C-alpha cells in the first residue's frame, strides 16, 4: 500500500506518546507531524458515507501559497529600498538585492512560526485536541504586516500576545473574535509606537548609515500625504516599489494571491469586492469635498497605497473573524472599505486605517450577522399563522 512505510513508523512509535508513555508531553507534536505527512485512514462511522476531499489543512495551506508572491516581492523590495537609500542600487545585481531582503525577512518568519506554533502545540497538548492549522496562516501574515526594522523580541511578544489572548483564550481556531494577525500588529502599534510609525522604520539601512544619500526620506507615501506632502508615483505603488510593511507594498503581487484565493474558492470574493467598493465610494466622497491635498488624491489611488490591498485580500477575508452570512459579508466588507479610508485620510494621528477598520468590523461582525439572522427569523415568524 502506498506510503505504508511511514504509517508503520508512526504506529511503531505511537505508544511512547500515548498516555503513560515516556514522551506523552509531546503527543500533540507527534500527531501534528503525523497528519502533516499523510491524511489519516479514518473512515466514516455515521452520517454521510462519503466526504469531500477538502479539509482545513488544505484550505490553510492554500492561503499560505496565496501569500507567497507578496512575501517574495517583499523580500526583494527590502533590498530595493535599502540599496536605493544608500545610492548603490544601479551597481547591485538582482539576486544580491533579493538576498539582502531574504536574509532580513527570514528571521522574522522563523521567530513568528517558532513562537506561535510552540504555543499552539502547548495548548493542544493541555486541552487534548488535535493541532489546529490556523496558525499556519497567521504565522506568515504577521511578518508581512510589520516594518522590517521591528526587533525580533518584539515580534515574539506580539505573536505570544495574539495567540494566547486573542485566540486560545477564546477557545482556539474557529472561536476567536478578532483576526489574530491583526491583533499582533495592533499590539505592536500601541505598545511600541516608536517602532511602528515615523520615517525610520520602513527601510533597513543597517550598518550603511553613513552611506545614505542626500535628501533621503524613509517615510511611506501615506505618512507623507498626511503631512500634506503628496509625493509618490502611483505605478510604483501598484508594482510595490515603495516603502511600507514587509509584504504590503505590491498591489500586483497581492492581486495574484487574491485571484488564486477566488479561483480556488478559498477566499470570499464578496468581502474583497465589497471592501473595494466601500473604499472607492469613500474616496469619491472625499474628492468631492476635498479641502486639503490628501483628500484630493484620485480616489482609486487608495487601493494601491498602504495596507489596503493586503487587508482586503488576506485580512478582512479571515472566515472566522469576518461576517458569516452572505448578506453580512457585503455589509461587513463595505464598512471596512469606508472606515479604512476615513481613518486613513481624516484622522491626524494614524497614517493608516486599514488595520483598525478591520479590527473594528471584526468586533461588529457578530452584530451584523445577528441582524441578518433576525431577518431570517422574522420571515419565518411572519409566515406562521397568527393563531400559533
Amino acid at each position, binding site marked *: 500500500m502506498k506510503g505504508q512505510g511511514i504509517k508503520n513508523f508512526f504506529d511503531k512509535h505511537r505508544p511512547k506518546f500515548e498516555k503513560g508513555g515516556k514522551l506523552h508531553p509531546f503527543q500533540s507534536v507527534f500527531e501534528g507531524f503525523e497528519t502533516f505527512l499523510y491524511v489519516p*485512514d*479514518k473512515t466514516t462511522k*455515521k452520517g*454521510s458515507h462519503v466526504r469531500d*476531499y477538502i479539509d*482545513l489543512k488544505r484550505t490553510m495551506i492554500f492561503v499560505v501559497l496565496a501569500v507567497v508572491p507578496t512575501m517574495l516581492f517583499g523580500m526583494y523590495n527590502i533590498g530595493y529600498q535599502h540599496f536605493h537609500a544608500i545610492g548603490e542600487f544601479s551597481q547591485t545585481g538582482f539576486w544580491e538585492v533579493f538576498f539582502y531582503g531574504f536574509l532580513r525577512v527570514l528571521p522574522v518568519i522563523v521567530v513568528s512560526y517558532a513562537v506561535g506554533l510552540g504555543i499552539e502545540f502547548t495548548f493542544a497538548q493541555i486541552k487534548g485536541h488535535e493541532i489546529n492549522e490556523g496558525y499556519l496562516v497567521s504565522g506568515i501574515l504577521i511578518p508581512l504586516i510589520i516594518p522590517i526594522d521591528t526587533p525580533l523580541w518584539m515580534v515574539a511578544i506580539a505573536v505570544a500576545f495574539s495567540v494566547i489572548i486573542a485566540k486560545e483564550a477564546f477557545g*482556539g481556531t474557529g472561536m476567536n473574535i478578532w483576526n489574530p494577525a491583526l491583533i499582533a500588529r495592533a499590539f505592536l502599534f500601541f505598545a511600541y509606537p516608536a517602532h511602528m510609525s515615523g520615517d525610520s522604520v520602513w527601510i533597513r539601512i543597517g550598518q550603511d548609515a553613513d552611506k545614505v544619500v542626500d535628501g533621503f526620506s524613509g517615510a511611506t507615501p501615506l505618512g507623507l500625504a498626511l503631512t500634506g506632502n503628496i509625493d509618490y508615483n502611483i505605478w510604483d505603488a501598484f508594482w510595490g516599489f515603495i516603502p511600507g510593511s514587509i509584504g504590503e507594498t505590491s498591489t500586483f503581487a497581492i492581486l495574484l494571491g487574491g485571484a488564486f484565493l477566488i479561483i480556488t*474558492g478559498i477566499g470570499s470574493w464578496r468581502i474583497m469586492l465589497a471592501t473595494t467598493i466601500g473604499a472607492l465610494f469613500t474616496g469619491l466622497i472625499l474628492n468631492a469635498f476635498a479641502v486639503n491635498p490628501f483628500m484630493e488624491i484620485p480616489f482609486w489611488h487608495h487601493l494601491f497605497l498602504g495596507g489596503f490591498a493586503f487587508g482586503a485580500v488576506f485580512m478582512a477575508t479571515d472566515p472566522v473573524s469576518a461576517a458569516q452570512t452572505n448578506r453580512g459579508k457585503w455589509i461587513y466588507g463595505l464598512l471596512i472599505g469606508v472606515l479604512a479610508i476615513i481613518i486613513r485620510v481624516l484622522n491626524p494621528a494614524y497614517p493608516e486605517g486599514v488595520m483598525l477598520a478591520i479590527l473594528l468590523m471584526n468586533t461588529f461582525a457578530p452584530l451584523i450577522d445577528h441582524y441578518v439572522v433576525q431577518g*431570517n427569523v422574522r420571515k419565518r415568524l411572519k409566515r406562521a399563522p397568527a393563531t400559533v
Partner: protein
Amino acid sequence: MSNTIKIKKGFDIKLKGKADLTVGKAIEASRYAVKPTDFSGLKPKLSVKADDIVKAGTPLFFDKAQPEVKFTSPVSGKVISVNRGERRRILEIEIESDGKFESVDFSKGEINSLDRETVKQNLLNSGLWPLMVQRPFGVIPEPDVTPRDIFITGFDSAPLAPDYEFTLKDEKESIQTGIDAISKLTEGKIYLGLRPGSEFASLKGVEINYFDGPHPAGNVGVQIHKTAPINKGDVVWTLNIQTLVYIGRLFTTGKLNLERLVAITGSEVKKTGYVKAIAGLAIKPFIENNTKKEVKERFISGNVLTGVKVEETGYTGLTQNQVTVIPEGDEIEPFGWISPGFNKFTAGKAFLSRLMPKKEYALNANYHGGERAFVISGQYEKVLPMDILPVYLLKAILVNDIDKMENLGIFEVIEEDMALCEYVCTSKIEVQSILRNGMDTMIKELA
C-alpha cells in the same frame, strides 16, 4: 394546476456505478429481516419469538409509545432469531422464508366506499403505516393526528438513486389506488413532486409540482419548503412514491406485497442494474459474485448520503430501494493535503478535478481530513435550497437553545435534507447526528 420550481442550490455527487436500466434475474433467497433501528424514536416491543411461524403481514413487534403501530413480516416463514446489540437493544428480527409468500388477509375493496378509520386500521395492521414519515422531526406518524397535508416525492435525486420512472412504469394503477387511499387520511391537500416531463403527471387527486435542479430537489423536505412550508404547530406526513405502490396493492388485493425493483449501484459493483426483491432481504444475494473485490468494500443499504452501513451478513432496509458498494478507503494518503487532485472529486474548487466536470468518480468512505471547529462560512448554504441558515441552526442545537432552534427552522429539516452539508464540510462536522440530537431534544421539549 401545476408549476415548475427551479432548484438552484444543491449538488450532484458524480459517483461511478449508476444502475443500468436493465432488470436482472429475480433474486431467490430465503433470509429476510426487519430492523427497528431504521426508524427514529422507535421503542420496539416484540410480539413474536424465535421459531414462530409467520405470514407476510404478521406483526413482529410494535411501538411501545403507540402500540397500534405494528411492524410486520415481509414474507411468510419462520422467525429464526432476534438479534440484540448493546443493552439488549433489538437490532433485527430474522425470518426464514418458506418460499410460499403467503400473506395475512387484510380488508380490501373500492376505496371510495371506505372511511378514514378503515383505511387507517388497514395501514396500521399491515405494517405499511411506519413506511410513512411525519414531519417535523422525521418520526413515525402518530395515528391520532390528522395531518395538515400529505407530501409525496415522485423521484429520488440522491447519488445513484433508483429511477422510479423506470422501476414503477407498470405500477401506475397501484399508485393511483394508493393516492386514493391516503387521501382519506387528511383534510388538506396531497402534493406530488415530480421531475419535469414525468410519466406520473397523469395521476389524479394530487397537486403536482415539478422540481428541476440538483440533489436535494427530490427530497420531500425541499419540496415542502418550496410549496407549503411547515410552521410551528403544523404536522404533515410524507411518503415516497414506492410506498404508494405497496398501499395500492394492499387495498386492491388485500395482501401485503413488498416486492419492488432494487437498484444495485456503486463503483465496486461488477454489473449494475435493477433486480426484483422483497423489502428486507439479506444484502448477500445482491452482492455475491457481483463486486470487484479489488479493495476493501463498504456495503450500504440506500445511498451514500443517508444509507445504512451493512455487514456482508446483514440486511437491506424496508425503506431503501438501493444497494451501493463503494471502497472503504481505510488507508493513508501521503501529503494528501497538497496534491493537485486530478482524481479528487470536490464540491468546492480547490482540486484540479474541476477541470473535468463530466467525469465520474469512485469515492470512498474516508474522512479526508480531521474534525475541526466551524471555520469556513458559506459552504452549507450552497447545497441547501431552503431559506434556512444551516450553521446557525446547528449552533443553536449545540448550545441547546430551544427558542432559537424553532426560530431558525428546525421544523422544516430532517437528516436527509442536510446530508449534503455534511458531505461538503471542510471541518468534517457530523451534521446529521447533530441535527438528530436537536430534533430529539425538541420532541422531548414539546411532549
